[in-house]
């Protein structure tokens, strides 16, 4: 049953990735005029000689599926062509920036999972004023979009308090921690609040259930009841929503990187789109979509593995 479900999810993933890659590559041919101008970047009409060179280099005159396949296998082998506006290979541009982006996403994920689950568990288990405080704060935070939280953090933490730098990516572990703390917090806050609320409702639902009353009635120590009977059973929705959060981080990290001047893949996507350098945009967009789709699929599989009661068929 679970194997069939996994096979179906894998098939959907494959179809999604195939359609997405065709769309991303095909975008090149949607533009009015010669697609080669988009590979030069800068939006200016280049010389006919350069255009002919690009046609040859990218095999633009070949049939679509042939050039698509060449592009896809090239990326799979780490060769995504040359960026003419950055004067560098796309693979090197990505390699230089991947570290910052991965660090940022990992940092934000840790914040979301640790702080979100802790806040939600405290609110759900304690109740009373702690519950009220967490609920009010998280409800407010959930409404703040990433770009507004970035701007607020820059104003409050870097300008007024001068605790963290407002710009740049930093080098080494301490430099990165210093520079990427605010971006990670900005990226994490609204998802953190969401995870906290989901955790709170899941914990409350479990704490009120009969098997927990029975466990308490048997005289099991409180710590054991909380760990083995409440948190364990509440983990399904928590894992599921945390995974959705990570997928969301992948999609929105370009906003934060742009706001804080982080030299990452998201900022590269935005800047190369502004320069209309499509060789870079295509490679980054493909990577982002692959990461997004794979995380989403993994979450679905993990959720169903954690809770066998979740119906695996229903598509309604």
């Amino acid at each position, binding site marked *: 049953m679970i194997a069939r479900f996994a096979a179906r999810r894998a098939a959907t*993933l494959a179809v999604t990735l195939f*359609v997405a890659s065709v769309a991303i590559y095909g975008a090149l041919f949607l533009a009015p005029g010669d697609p080669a101008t988009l590979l030069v970047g800068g939006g200016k009409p280049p010389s006919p000689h350069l255009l002919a060179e690009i046609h040859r280099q990218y095999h633009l005159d070949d049939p679509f599926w042939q050039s698509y396949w060449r592009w896809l296998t090239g990326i799979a082998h780490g060769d995504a062509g040359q960026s003419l506006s950055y004067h560098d290979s796309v693979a090197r541009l990505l390699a230089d920036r991947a570290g910052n982006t991965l660090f940022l996403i990992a940092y934000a994920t840790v914040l979301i999972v640790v702080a979100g689950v802790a806040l939600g568990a405290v609110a759900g288990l304690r109740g009373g004023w702690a519950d009220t405080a967490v609920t009010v704060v998280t409800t407010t935070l959930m409404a703040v979009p990433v770009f507004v939280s970035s701007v607020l953090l820059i104003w409050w933490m870097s300008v007024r308090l001068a605790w963290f730098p407002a710009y740049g990516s930093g080098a080494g572990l301490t430099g990165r921690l210093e520079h990427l703390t605010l971006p990670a917090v900005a990226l994490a806050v609204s998802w953190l609040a969401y995870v906290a609320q989901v955790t709170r409702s899941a914990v409350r639902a479990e704490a009120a259930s009969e098997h927990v009353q029975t466990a308490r009635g048997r005289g099991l120590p409180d710590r054991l009841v909380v760990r083995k009977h409440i948190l364990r059973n509440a983990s399904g929705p928590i894992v599921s929503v945390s995974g959705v959060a990570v997928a969301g981080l992948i999609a929105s990290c370009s906003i934060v990187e742009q706001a804080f001047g982080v030299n990452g893949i998201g900022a590269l996507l935005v800047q190369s789109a502004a320069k*209309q350098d499509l060789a870079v945009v295509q490679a980054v967009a493909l990577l982002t979509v692959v990461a997004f789709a794979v995380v989403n699929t993994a979450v679905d599989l993990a959720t169903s593995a954690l809770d066998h009661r979740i119906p695996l068929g229903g598509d309604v």
Partner: protein
Amino acid sequence: MSTPQLAAAAGARLVPGRLRAFARGQGTLTAAAVVVALVVLAAVCAPLLAPYDPNAVDPLAVSQGSSAAHWLGTDDTGRDLLSRLLYGARPSLLAPAVITVVAGTVGTALAVTAAWLGGWWDRLVSAALDVVFGFPGLVLAVVGAAVFGAGLDIAVATLSLAYLPYVARVVRSGALRERALPYISALEMLGMSGPRICLRHLVPNLLPLVLVQATTSFGYTMLDVAAFSFIGLGTQPPSAEWGLMVAGGTPGILAGRPEQSLYAGAVIVVFVVACNVLGSGLSRRLLGAQR
């Protein structure tokens, strides 16, 4: 659990009696409706309300705080912030409105035909929606901007596509539920044609569902459009737009003058929260009996 429900739950603990009733029921819904109506009115009447031309620079009044002449102060080229917020409401509201209408109409059409015809068309539509759903909307919009050049129109086109599944999935299951009801087979028995049943009976009965979905996604599309302008690929300067104003205020923040970013950010947050409250209020009111 949705935000407003939680807000109501929190309110119940904090304040007793009449205030609790306010937080639960009519009060918040009315307040949200008033906020949305006021912002729409401000956008429509911007030329009447704005004290200045939104793009008029005044070198003698650069980066001022609030005063009698400029209620919200001026930006770093001496443009009046209140006027820019008022005029900025126009693209900030119009773009999400177009996206919501396009995604709502096309999504409903796809969903209803899929539910009605079933078979290969239903499978095709559902699979296509799954594929679009697996594609982050913002990345789609950025690729669009790379091909066609930056601008709000490309954001509207790509985000309309990205938001299709959000409407279509919900409406499809609604249409499937509705199709199974006896009145539809009664109409079929009376010899009414499929398209006519859909247009005259099925779609009107699904409208509340579409309306609720549209209201909620309006807030989210606004956030996406503003984010797209914030990263510099949507509305281009010197036009006034809220997301662009948040970004345009960042040099001011570093110079200790955060007003522009804070005002624009606050307007966005308040409006989106109002949309969400309105959406779940409508959902309780219109769909309450069904759920």
